[in-house]
């Protein structure tokens, strides 16, 4: 990035008047966005905004190295625009989504098909990519799976046991969250946000609270920001511990699989100790937090955290001490750093491919402006790398929470929320345990929410999974899938 950036700059968790955002005709806008990405930007969000019968495109780009976000928009247009995907593949799902929602055609998009729903709001059943040949066989998995997991359809083109191509079709969990949020905030808004992806309740609720506070022009009290940071890391600990167990389970390595199921419960119970709900429902709300953490509960939290950290450390050691496990993890499902960057992967999946990409570090907002932690990066891009990043993040999150509990901030934990300012746009990024959660909100003339765009990390990362499977054994799919552990409902919204 340099001074010649055309998009308007802002920080994470900041709002700016809608009128201040520069606009271009559609074609020029795409070229400008491409130039921003080439300058080192990364596409965080790309969505359509209906203006009468026409449509505006809005793009949010993140400059990770410069701790800055940039926003630009197009003038209203109808019909089509030159596809950004052709030069920057990270836009491919965003453009398909805009096409599906608003009917504007990204010209020359290489693989234009619905993202979530076809005509009758039914899940995707568009034709999948096919490989022809006498030795090729096609395996269709889902949307009903053998385990208790979310619904999604996976289509493998295989030659023997080797996967040539995997196509992932989702949309079975589409609930219309963005549409429901428009016109708000309603009484149900917070509950809807908390269920965008139930295992990322704290992450999405924090992004929502931050963005609404930015629109209202207030900042949550420091103690609330401190509590949110603790809750966010507890959520990460629970899910990463569960993931290590699930990875062990997928290679039938029993010791870690059995231990981590229990340890995940221990971490969830810590969140329950914090706010009464294992998934953190009702803790984070615009204006602060729902509950305070009294000193004696804080002590109890620290004590139980130390015990759980010791256990999860042991369980992880078993995993890395077993050569039979490493033989399965190493070299399986490799995503190179170039591929990860080109696809715009986020979270542990990006960091395991050697990309230093962490919102807490790159775009600190809230408590992370005052308390930092190192970014966990691993260069290999394989299942072992993704597991290793989780292991490192468990250690660092545990240390972070302990440190924070030792030095609490005093003061109120909830403040009055004024109404949102009219015609403002605000962006909030939060590093959830799966990666970057992006909420972009625009208010209308009356200060109601005109457009609420949610980008779950899974939206960026599903394509990474498809790429990881290229040339892999089909029997390694569950292992690769678990190493990404993406959300179906977060993608389907």
């Amino acid at each position: 990035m340099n001074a010649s950036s055309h998009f308007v700059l802002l920080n994470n968790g900041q709002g700016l008047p809608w009128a201040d955002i520069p606009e271009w005709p559609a074609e020029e806008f795409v070229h400008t966005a491409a130039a921003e990405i080439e300058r080192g930007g990364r596409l965080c969000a790309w969505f359509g905004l209906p203006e009468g019968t026409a449509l505006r495109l809005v793009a949010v780009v993140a400059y990770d190295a410069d701790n800055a976000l940039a926003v630009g928009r197009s003038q209203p247009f109808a019909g089509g625009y030159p596809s950004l995907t052709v030069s920057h593949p990270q836009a491919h799902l965003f453009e398909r989504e805009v096409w599906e929602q608003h009917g504007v055609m990204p010209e020359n998009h290489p693989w234009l098909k619905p993202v979530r729903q076809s005509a009758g709001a039914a899940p995707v059943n568009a034709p999948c990519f096919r490989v022809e040949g006498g030795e090729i066989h096609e395996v269709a998995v889902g949307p009903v799976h053998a385990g208790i997991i979310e619904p999604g359809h996976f289509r493998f083109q295989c030659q023997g046991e080797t996967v040539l191509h995997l196509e992932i079709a989702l949309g079975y969990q589409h609930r219309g969250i963005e549409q429901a949020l428009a016109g708000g905030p309603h009484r149900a808004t917070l509950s809807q946000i908390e269920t965008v992806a139930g295992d990322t309740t704290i992450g999405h609720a924090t992004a929502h609270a931050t963005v609404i506070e930015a629109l209202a022009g207030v900042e949550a009290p420091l103690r609330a920001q401190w509590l949110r940071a603790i809750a966010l890391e507890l959520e990460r600990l629970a899910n990463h511990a569960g993931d290590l167990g699930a990875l062990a389970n997928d290679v039938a390595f029993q010791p870690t699989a059995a231990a981590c199921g229990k340890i995940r419960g221990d971490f969830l119970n810590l969140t329950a100790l914090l706010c009464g709900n294992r998934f953190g429902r009702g803790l984070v709300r615009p204006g602060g937090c729902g509950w305070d953490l009294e000193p004696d509960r804080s002590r109890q939290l620290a004590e139980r955290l130390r015990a759980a950290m010791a256990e999860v450390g042991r369980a992880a050691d078993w995993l890395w001490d077993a050569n039979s496990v490493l033989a399965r993890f190493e070299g399986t499902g490799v995503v190179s750093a170039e591929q990860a960057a080109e696809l715009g992967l986020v979270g542990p999946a990006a960091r395991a491919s050697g990309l230093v990409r962490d919102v807490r570090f790159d775009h600190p907002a809230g408590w992370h402006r005052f308390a930092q932690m190192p970014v966990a990066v691993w260069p290999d891009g394989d299942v072992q790398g993704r597991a290793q990043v989780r292991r490192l993040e468990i250690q660092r999150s545990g240390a972070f929470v302990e440190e924070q509990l030792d030095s609490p901030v005093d003061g109120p934990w909830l403040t009055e929320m004024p109404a949102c300012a009219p015609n403002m746009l605000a962006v909030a990024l939060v590093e959830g345990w799966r990666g970057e959660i992006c909420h972009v909100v625009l208010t209308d003339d009356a200060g109601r929410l005109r457009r609420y765009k949610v980008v779950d990390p899974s939206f960026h990362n599903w394509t990474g999974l498809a790429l990881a499977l290229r040339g892999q054994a089909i029997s390694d799919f569950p292992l690769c899938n678990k190493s990404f552990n993406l959300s179906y409902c977060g993608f389907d919204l």
Partner: protein
Amino acid sequence: MSHGLDVLARLAFWLVLAPLVPGIINKVKAWVAGRRGPPLFQLYFDLAKLWRKGVVLSTAVSPGHVAGPAIAWVALMSAALLLPLGPAGAILSFRGDALLFVYLLALARFCTAGAALDTGSAFEGMGAAREVSYAILSEAAVITALLTLAVQTGSLSLGAMLAPAAGPGAAVLAAGLFVVLLAENCRVPFDDPNTHLELTMVHEVMVLDHSGPPLAVILHGASVKLLLFATLLVQAALPLGQWPAGPAAGLLVISLLGVAVGVGLVESLLARLAFQRVPLLLTTAFILCLFALLTSWKASTSSEARQGAMNPAECRCSGTRAAHSAALPGESGGKRA
């Protein structure tokens, strides 16, 4: 014991005791993981439940879909009845029954794989392909193991082959057969009996479309196969056939328990192999059996050389049998002294 009672007792051993083995393995796994685990008799409960259920049949399948598991079960039970149980010998024993034993196992596999392919499902096709490609290597190992015993004893009847220990190569042979047991019964590290992931299964995926009594027959057949390989392993390694009935029965039960615990420990402490690595391990099992074969062949030729022309080679066969039948009184005589 009259012959009729003997047959009934054998049938009971195979029919009633077989489902206990997976129960023991699961208990061991649960114990290592610090869980309580399913009840020891869980498979019996499952079988009873499945037997009471109806059958859901795909419209795409032929009668072979149901006939396959039935034939496979009969083949496995017949193979089990060919296997001697310590000094009691086998119910059915004739020259060359070892070959029939191998073919019965192959027939069972063919029928299970055929019933799986019959559904036309991509998963079951993959499972059948994997099962059959593993079989190429594991069958080679089993045949080599039987060949070792045949060279050792000069007989082609399982009763005579398994009565004495496998001689100098017994430990190597037992190791090879243990790996084959894990592969043939789809245990870790070859397969994961607990997985719910269709794409990684071998045996489990072949039975995905079976339900009710046919599934019960498959599950029972699988437990019989497990007990069968365990019994084969124990008797190949230990000279149970030359012991008096009481201690032999006791040792058989203890060793079978040992094998089950061993399988449970392997499953508790090892991760699964990647499919590409499976041939390596199976080839290792084959080579172990091959070493046992070479050892016993070497031993038999050198003993022949020692004995010189006094004992013509063609008499060795009956000679060994005579020695075998004479061994029992000799053993008990030794105990008395």
